[in-house]
């Protein structure tokens, strides 16, 4: 996932580009870039499962943020419901907690990216921008922990669905 990592590093760079008075252009692009870092993390991880490397970019292009957002919202809500049942501590539960971080962060960043890209009336602060970037970093860290787990791989496949998986 070097491209996704590069985007995340670029988001940091933009957020800190002007040390004293950050430009709104830098902060808004930083938020948007942090979102795209997570988007590309998920699309590249999904595409990696395609056996032939030459077609992986095409597979990644099949992923669309709208259905992905719906799937992530459904997964987040499903996991919220499960956590309310107070399940016993287990390695599987830890995987699900990390998966929740990834799905919930994607849902939030969709909104923040939309605001950053399209709503010029909103003024961003560096604090807020860094908070969004750090949330994506946490999602990256969670993904690294669970990327080979069955639940995580199952989640990736559902990102390709146009309707919610029932």
């Amino acid at each position, binding site marked *: 996932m070097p491209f996704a990592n590069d985007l995340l590093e670029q988001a940091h760079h933009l957020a800190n580009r002007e040390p004293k008075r950050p430009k709104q252009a830098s902060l808004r692009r930083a938020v948007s870039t942090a979102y795209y870092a997570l988007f590309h993390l998920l699309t590249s991880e999904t595409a990696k499962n395609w056996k032939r490397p030459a077609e992986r970019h095409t597979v990644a292009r099949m992923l669309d943020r709208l259905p992905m957002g719906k799937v992530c919202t459904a997964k987040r809500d499903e996991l919220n419901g499960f956590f309310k049942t107070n399940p016993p501590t287990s390695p599987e539960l830890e995987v699900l907690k990390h998966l929740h971080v990834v799905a919930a962060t994607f849902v939030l960043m969709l*909104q923040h990216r939309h*605001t950053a890209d399209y709503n010029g009336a909103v*003024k961003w*602060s560096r*604090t807020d921008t860094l*908070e969004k970037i750090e949330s994506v970093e946490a999602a990256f860290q969670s993904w690294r922990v669970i990327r080979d787990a069955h639940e995580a791989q199952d989640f990736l496949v559902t990102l390709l669905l146009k309707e919610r998986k029932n």
Partner: protein
Amino acid sequence: MGPTRLKRGFATSRQTSDNGIVPIVPRGLVDQSEIRTAVQQVEGDLAPNVIRIMYSYSLDWTGAESLFFRIILSDEASSPKNLRQTTQQIIAKILQDINAEDLGLQTYFNFRSKSEQDMLQEPFWERP
């Protein structure tokens, strides 16, 4: 007159209904006083890290009824070494105390430090 429809998108100003006075509220059965009380309680509990918590009802970009929180942090709490821990603590407490999920509301959080608000001086981030 029936309930007011929320405007789509991030709340950027004090949205009001067509009489210009009454704040826009969600269509669902949301106990606003309960939310207001819970938020005030959280604000007090998390002082001095939290200086002010404000919120607006609006539709998010998908059209879902949402609560958009605007939270001003102390400069110490918003320093890079503390930021993540501080914001996670605040988000968790607000979500727990207002039961937003049970109310069927999406929640979004934006933060700024006191120094940043002093510089930006946005009325939307000040109490009316």
